C-alpha cells in the first residue's frame, strides 16, 4: 500500500488543457437549442459505437480517458448503454454487418441526441471505401452532426469533435 500511495504522490497531476471547439468540423448545422446544449456541455453521456473500424480509433478514444486528457473533468463520460447516452461517438467505415446494429443503437438513444463520426473512415469511408461489405462514411447510415478526420485522430482532436458538437455556434 505504501508503494501505491507513494507512486500516486510522485506522479502528481499530469492533465493538460482541453481543446477549443472548431466549427469547421460540422456536417449538419446546429440542430439543438442553446438551452439543451448548455446542459449537454456540462453533463454529457457518450456511447461509443465501433461500426467497423480497424481498431486504431479505439486506441485514441481510450486515451481520452487517460490522465493527460481526462475527458471526465469536462463533465463528459462514457456510458454502457445507448439508453443513457446524449451523444454517439461512431468509428469505422460502417460495415454492412454492423449497419443494422448501428441504426438500432441510434434509435435506442433518446432525443435530443448528437452524433460525432470519428476518423477518416467515419468521415468518408477511408481506405476501405464503399463495397459489398462496407457502407463507407457514417452519415450514409445515420445523421452526423460533427465529423472529425484523422487516422486515427489524436485524443485532443476527438475531444475537439465532441466539444464542437455541444458548443453553441456563435
Amino acid at each position, binding site marked *: 500500500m505504501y*508503494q*501505491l500511495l507513494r*507512486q*500516486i504522490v510522485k*506522479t502528481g497531476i*499530469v492533465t493538460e488543457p482541453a481543446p477549443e471547439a472548431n466549427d469547421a468540423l460540422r456536417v449538419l448545422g446546429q440542430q439543438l437549442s442553446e438551452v439543451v446544449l448548455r446542459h449537454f456541455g456540462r453533463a454529457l453521456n457518450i456511447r*461509443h*459505437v*465501433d*461500426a*467497423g*473500424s*480497424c*481498431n*486504431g*480509433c*479505439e*486506441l*485514441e*478514444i*481510450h*486515451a481520452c*480517458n*487517460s*490522465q*493527460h486528457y481526462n475527458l471526465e473533468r469536462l463533465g463528459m463520460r*462514457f456510458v*454502457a*448503454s*445507448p439508453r443513457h447516452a446524449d451523444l454517439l461517438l461512431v468509428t*469505422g*467505415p460502417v*460495415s*454492412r*454487418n*454492423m*449497419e*443494422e*446494429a448501428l441504426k438500432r*443503437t441510434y434509435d435506442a438513444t433518446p432525443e435530443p441526441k448528437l452524433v460525432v463520426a470519428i476518423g477518416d473512415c467515419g468521415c468518408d469511408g*477511408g*481506405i*476501405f*471505401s464503399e*463495397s*459489398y*461489405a*462496407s457502407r463507407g462514411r457514417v452519415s450514409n447510415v445515420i445523421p452526423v452532426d460533427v465529423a472529425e478526420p484523422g*487516422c*486515427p485522430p*489524436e485524443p485532443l482532436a476527438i475531444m475537439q469533435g465532441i466539444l464542437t458538437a455541444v458548443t453553441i455556434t456563435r
Partner: protein
Amino acid sequence: MNSLLNRSEFRLQVEALKARKARLIALWASHEPPGHAIDAAFAAPEGLVWITAPLTEPRYPAIDDLFPAASRMQRAAYDLAGVRAEGSGDERKWLRHGAWPDGVFPLRKDFTSRDFERARDQYPFVRVEGEGVHEIPVGPVHAGTIEPGHFRFSIVGEEVQRLEQRLGYKHKGIEKRFESLTPLQGARLAGRVSGDSTVAYAWAYAMALEAACGVEVPPRAAWLRGVALELERISNHLGDLGYLGNDVALSFGFFQFWRLKEELLRVSKQLFGHRYLMDFVVPGGVAADLADAAPLHRILSVLKSETATLRGIYEEHAGAQDRFIMAGQVLPALAERLGMTGLPARASGQAFDLRVDHAVPPYTAVSLRKAGHTRGDVAARVSVRFDELAESLRLVGEFLAGLPSGPARSELPAPRAGRTCGWVESWRGEVFIALDIDADGRLRRVHAHDPSWQNWPLLERAVLGNIVPDFPLINKSFNLSYSGQDL
C-alpha cells in the same frame, strides 16, 4: 516452400505435417478461373511450409479433424470464395451475415461489388439444455469501448456452461479491396487490417512484396523495423496491463500505465511521425529515418524503472492477485490440441516466438529470452506481459546501440509474378500475409491472417466454469482482434 498438390495429396500432406507436430498458421481459398485453389500455411520445425492445391471443382477435403483451428477458416473460405471443405464438422456460415446472399462469393473473379438486398440473418447457435440453464446474449454493441462481436453465454446461476462467439460484424471486404489497389497502395491497407498491430502487418506485407521484387532492405531499415515492432509491443502491453488493473477495480493501474503509454506515444510521434507508427514500415524500408535517439533512450529508462515499480505493486496487491490467479485457465494440453498461438499460448506452455524460432534481421543479431508460463490463467498472461515488456525495453536499447549506418530505404523494382509471403511476430502472435501477383504486376490475391483466428476458440474454453463477471477480465487478458479476424 510452396508446392502444388492435388486434392488427395493435400490431405496427405496435412496429415504428414500433423505427424511432424507442425502448427497451422492459416488456411484460405482463391478463385483461379477456370478453377479454384486451397492454400494452407504451417509452422514446421524447419520453417514455414506453404501448400497449395489447385482444384477443378470448388471442394477439398476438410482438415479441421487434424487441426481444430482450421474450422472457422474453412467456413470463412466458403463464405468468401465458395470453396467447400468436405467432411467438416461445422458447415455454418462464419463471416457472411445478411449483407450478401448464400451462393454469391465476393472473392470470385466474376463478382461485382454492389448493394444486395439484405438477406435474413439466422445463425444456429448451439443450445444448452437442462434445468436452470439460461442464455445471456451480449453484443454486437458492447458496454465499453470495445470492437463489436456477439457472445452467447449459457449459464446456470453465475457459472458459464458454454460460450459461443459469433464474429464477422466488422467484415469490410479487406481481401477484395486489396485487389483494386496497386502493390504499393496495398501496404497502407495492410497496416489497417488490425490497427493495434499496424507495424507487424505493414512489415509482413513489406516482407512479402520485397520478396516478389527480389530486394533485401538495407540493414538500417531492418533495425528500425525491429525498434518499431518492439515499440508497438511495449505500447500494447502498457495499455492492456492498465486495463487488467482497471478490470479488477484497481483503477490506479489504468491511470499509471496509460500515463506511461501516452508518454511513449508522444516520443513515437516526435521521432517517427505517428503515435502508433502507422505507415512507418513501407515496402523497401522505413518511411522516416531516426535522426536523434536521445528522446527514445530517455523514455526507455523511465519505462524500465516505472514498470518495475508497478509490477511490484500489482504482485503485492492481494485483491488484484485474487482475481488474476486461476481465472480463465487454459492448460497446456488444451492449448496444444487447439493450436493456440502467440502471447496467450506462451502463458499456457506453448513456447513459440517467431523472433527466436525463425528470426530475421535484426532479431538474428540479438539474443532474446522467450517469456513463458505454464499455469495458463489470467495471472500467467499478466506475468508474460510483464516479462515481454521488460524484454522489449531491453531489445529497443540493443537495436539502437547496434543501429547500422546507411540508407533506411531502397528503391523497389517492379514485382515479379508469383506468390510470396510475410510472417511476423506481432505483440499478439504471428501475423501472416500471402501475396499473389499477376503477370502485369497487380495484386491478384492477398490473404491477411491474424493470430486471433487461432485464439478466439480458446477464449470460449477459458471461461468455462468461471463466473460471468470474470469474463471481461479474461477477455482483456487475451485482448484478441475482431477487425483482424473479420477482415
